[in-house]
Each structure stands twice: as structure tokens, then as C-alpha cells.
């Protein structure tokens, strides 16, 4: 009983187990197509962009923050790097400028949220509108291509047979897992997400931590945008229109809560993998692609309901029932 309880209350463990079963199921039922090189690399390519953003986003969600604008920052940085390269700016300089642009966008939104104290949803929604418009304004609404060969080779450059973009995605994931576990600065996120006022009284510089989270998210979105431009060797204005929702959904599936205070980079990775495998399975079983979203949404809702209920069940089993009004949210 105790083991089952522990198993289900540890999201990373239970989710990994289900993902493992899912992989096993796919490998047995469609061995030829699922285990093929192309399919495995395809799945990894598919989640690599979201992974790059997701590490920093997990840290942000743990602190109780929230960012709807990542997708537009990603696409905007994609456009910026393309325009810079087309204008003949050297590649390293173009990359540095683009990351700086991403960081500045994050810093503007982050300082409005952290220092003026406005709801992150509203600020990043406004940011989304504004940056989305900026993308169309600077690009003229069309896709941009024609980069130097060196740049387009970057994301697909293979180190030990692993394409650079995938390697980079895994490195960021591992880095954020380590930082969120061991780094003093990043551990502050858990306190802030758990109880912001208490964290402030403890002497944590809440505003600074929040601001840095937003800067990091936007800077990582810039990285993702650059690598995506390099991978496809074309920049599309609508590249990031789904990123924010997909990443947030995966992070929530991976065990974080919008209230903040919990979550882990590993959980996020497993969540992303889970969603990617669902899309993959739908293709492999030649179900109409359109149904993918139905499954993702259903799983998201199922998991949050389970989440709210397991804690209720555990409460019922373990402790005497409290008569306080319920106001816990998941």
C-alpha cells in the first residue's frame, strides 16, 4: 500500500513508468517502424526545440511565474538572426545579438512583472501580441531563407553521431536539472513558489530571482529560435505559435503546478517525451493527425484530475479529515 502510494505521489517515477510501458507497447506492436533510425531521430528532433525552452520554463513555473510569450520570442529571434545573417553580419556576432535581443525582451517583461507587480499572464499576453506583431512587421509576413552554409550546417552538425541541436537540448535539460537540485540560487525558486511572502521575509531577493527567470526563458527561446532557423534553413513567422502551450502542458504533465513550488526538469523532459510519443504513435498507427490534440488534452486533464485526487485520497487514508474549506488548487 505504502509503495503504491509513494509510487503515485512521485510524478517523475510514475510518469517514467508509463512512458516506458508506452515505448514497450510501441516497440512490440510496430517494431519495424517505431524502432527505425528515422523514427527515433524524428521524435528527438521534434522535441528538441521545446526541450531547449522547457528547462528555463520549468524553473519559471516552479517560482510561480508564467510565460505565454515564449513562442513569439522564439519566432522573433528566428527572424532577427535571419535578417542579420542576410545583412551580412558575421555568424557569431549575429548569434550573440539575437540572444541579447531575446534576453532584453525577457528583461522588459520580467521587470514589469517583478518590479511593478503585474500579473504575469497579462504582461506576457501583451508581450505575445506585441512581439507577434513585430515578427510580421520586420519580416513582412513572409518566410526568410538564404543563410550561409556554415550556419545551416550548425544544428545538424553531428557530434558522436548526435546532431548538435539534440545534444544542446539534452545539455540544457541536464543543466537545469542539476541547477534546480543543487544550485543555491535556483533552489530559491522553490521557496518563492511555495510561499512568496515567507521567501521575502527569509531574505530572498524575490524580484531579482523572478526577473532572472524571465530573462533566462526568453534567452533560451532565442537559442531555440536560432537552432530552429539553422535546422530548417528557413525562418517562418508562425514557427512558435504553439510552443508556449505545448511546453506548459508538458511541464504540468511532468509534475509542476501553476501555483508554483514543485516540478523538475526531468519530469518536464518525460512530459515532453510522452506528448511526442503520443504524436508518434498516432502517425505510426495511421490515425488522422488531427486527433493528436484530443489525446494530449485528454491526458493533460486526466493527469491534473488524478493529481488533485491522489492527494485527496492520501489525505483520507492517512490523516483525520480536516474540516477546513477546500481551497487547494493544482
Amino acid at each position, binding site marked *: 500500500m505504502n509503495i503504491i502510494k509513494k509510487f503515485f505521489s512521485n510524478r517523475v517515477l510514475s510518469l517514467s513508468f508509463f512512458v516506458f510501458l508506452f515505448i514497450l507497447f510501441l516497440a512490440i506492436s510496430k517494431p519495424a517502424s517505431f524502432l527505425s533510425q528515422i523514427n527515433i531521430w524524428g521524435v528527438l528532433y521534434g522535441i528538441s526545440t521545446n526541450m531547449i525552452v522547457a528547462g528555463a520554463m520549468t524553473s519559471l513555473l516552479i517560482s510561480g511565474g508564467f510565460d505565454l510569450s515564449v513562442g513569439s520570442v522564439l519566432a522573433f529571434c528566428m527572424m532577427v538572426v535571419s535578417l542579420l545573417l542576410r545583412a551580412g553580419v558575421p555568424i557569431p556576432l549575429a548569434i550573440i545579438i539575437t540572444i541579447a535581443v531575446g534576453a532584453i525582451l525577457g528583461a522588459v517583461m520580467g521587470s514589469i512583472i517583478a518590479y*511593478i507587480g503585474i500579473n504575469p499572464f497579462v504582461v506576457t499576453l*501583451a508581450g505575445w501580441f506585441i512581439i507577434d506583431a513585430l515578427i510580421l512587421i520586420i519580416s513582412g509576413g513572409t518566410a526568410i531563407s538564404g543563410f550561409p552554409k556554415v550556419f545551416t550546417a550548425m544544428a545538424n552538425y553531428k557530434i558522436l553521431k548526435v546532431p548538435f541541436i539534440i545534444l544542446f537540448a539534452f545539455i540544457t535539460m541536464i543543466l537545469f536539472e542539476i541547477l534546480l537540485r543543487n544550485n543555491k540560487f535556483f533552489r530559491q525558486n522553490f521557496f518563492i513558489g511555495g510561499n512568496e511572502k515567507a521567501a521575502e521575509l527569509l531574505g530572498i531577493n524575490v524580484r531579482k530571482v523572478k526577473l532572472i527567470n524571465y530573462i533566462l526563458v526568453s534567452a533560451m527561446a532565442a537559442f531555440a529560435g536560432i537552432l530552429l532557423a539553422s535546422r530548417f534553413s528557413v525562418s517562418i513567422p508562425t514557427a512558435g505559435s504553439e510552443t508556449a502551450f505545448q511546453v506548459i502542458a508538458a511541464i504540468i504533465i511532468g509534475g509542476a503546478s501553476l501555483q508554483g513550488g514543485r516540478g523538475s526538469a526531468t519530469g518536464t523532459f518525460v512530459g515532453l517525451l510522452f506528448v511526442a510519443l503520443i504524436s508518434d504513435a498516432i502517425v505510426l498507427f495511421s490515425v488522422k493527425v488531427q486527433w493528436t490534440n484530443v489525446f494530449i488534452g485528454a491526458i493533460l486533464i486526466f493527469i491534473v484530475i488524478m493529481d488533485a485526487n491522489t492527494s485527496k485520497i492520501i489525505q483520507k487514508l492517512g490523516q483525520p479529515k480536516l474540516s477546513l474549506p477546500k481551497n487547494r488548487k493544482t
Partner: protein
Amino acid sequence: MKSFFAKAFKKREVVLLLVIILLCAVAGLTSKSFFTMDNFRAVMVIVSIHTIAACAMTVLMVSGGFDISIGSVLAFISVILGILLNRGTNITVSIIIVLIIGYFIGTCIGFIISKFNVNPFITTLGAMFIFKGLAWGVGILGKPVENQRMVFGNFPQAFNNIAGGRFFGVEYIVFYMVGILIIFSVFLNYNKFLRQNFYVGGNETAARLVGIKVDRLKVFNYALMGLMIAVVVVLKASRYQFAVVLGNEGFPMEIITAVIIGGASLRGGGGSIIGSFLGVVLLTLVYNIITILGIVPYWYGFLVGFILLASILVYETTKKFKIR
């Protein structure tokens, strides 16, 4: 007299109205085609459609909830309506079915949010995914007249007449909107049941302790939202004689933006129907003026984001100032 103006300026609606009048004046001076009946009609049709959704969204946001799935739900209901009408189902029956589906979807969302205590953002995010997929998946089973954006058309003439006519030069859909606006405004301000939303949004725990049936109220709010989306689908399809399924992703964000500009807060407890209406009018006017002046339409999103940010900044800073 001075205190009258001071009081008036603290009202969000008054400030919004002044901004709108100013905007109209500037637009009227710069373009001849702004103050024409045709342009007014075009603006009012869009305002009507958005206002009907914004009314329900206001009630929802007053209670501290919100819904980002309405774009997908709208798409899904459009598919159902399109398929029903193309199959030759009786018009009244199809409309009733569509309204029931909208109400039912809203009830389900509200049930999950209130009974299972799940965050409204995540629940409606999940619902957004589900209904986007369903709209697409079910839509390809029907016979859209255009596949690119999955547009349903060829509705019977009697259906198109529901919102497709004019009365003394005013579109029917405007009358529907005014009726819904008045009903919502009166009920949110004077009806005992809907007024509870302000308590729930202000302090949910306290509202529970006072004896308000918070869960029931929340489920009702989301059901109302679903119902109003179905109403929007019917009126929109009837007015335009088409039901566009894809490309509604921006709809929920635009409605939420209008409601926030109108004075509602994401924390709940504040907001008014008239404010939301004025918010919708402001956003629609911005779009209209951009189109009339021949500015590249991309600037619309920029301006919307800017107005949202400015309004919330002004609101928050004046509130802080008042407390001091």
C-alpha cells in the same frame, strides 16, 4: 464640481468612453470613410459578435475563473452546426442541439474545475487541445466548402435570415447583442445569484464560509460561457452565411484582453459588463481605423498589446496610489 470629475475619472468606463470618443474624432478627421453608415455597420457586426462572448467571459472573470478554450470550442461547435445544416436537419432542431452542446461542454469544464479543484488555466488548456483536435477531426468528415480554413457554407436561406437582415438600417445581430448586453448587465448587478460572483472572486474561502455554493456557481458560469459561445456560432454563421473553423486561435485572447481593458482583473472580484463592451469597442475600432488608414494590419497586434499593457499599468499604479 471638481469632485464630480475626480469621481468620474476613477470610473474605468468613463475613461474608456473618452478614449473611444477621442479615437473616433481623430479617425474622422483623418479619413472620410470613417463616419459612413457602411463602416459603422461593419464595426458593429464585429463588436456584436465579440461582445456576446465577452459578456459571459466577464461573469467568469469576476468570479476569478477564465477560459482560453473558447476559440477551439467555437471551432468545434461551428463544425457541428455546419454538418447538421448541410445534412438538412431542421433549423430549429440544429440550433437547439448546438446550444445544448455548448452548454454541456461548458458544464463539463466547470465541473472539472470546481469539483476536482483544478486550475482553470490548465483545464481550459486541455479543453483547448481536445476541441481543436475534435473540430479538425470531425470537420474533415463533413463537407466544407473550402478546405484550407475549413469553411462550412451553403446554409438554408431561413437560417441566414436569423441574423442576416436589417431593421431601419441596423443589423439584426446588433439587436441580439443589445438584448444580451442588457440582460447580463442587469443580472450581474442586481440578480442575487450572479452577484455572488463578486464575493467568490474577491475571496473564495470567505465566500464558502458565508455559505455561498461556490462550486454550483462556478459550474453555472462555465456553462453560461459555453452557451454563449454556441450563440456566437449561430449568429456569426447566420450573419456571414459561412462558418469558419480554423483560424480562431486568437479569439479567446482577444476577448480576455477586451475584458481586462474593461476593468476586470485576473484575480477576480472586479469587472463590469459595460466596461467589457467598451473594451471590445475600443479594440474593434483600433482594427477598423488601421484598415481604413491603410496601415499594414500587422500593427493591430502591436497596438492591442500596447493598450493592454498601458491599461493594466495605469490601473495598477492608480490603485497603489489610492492605498497610500
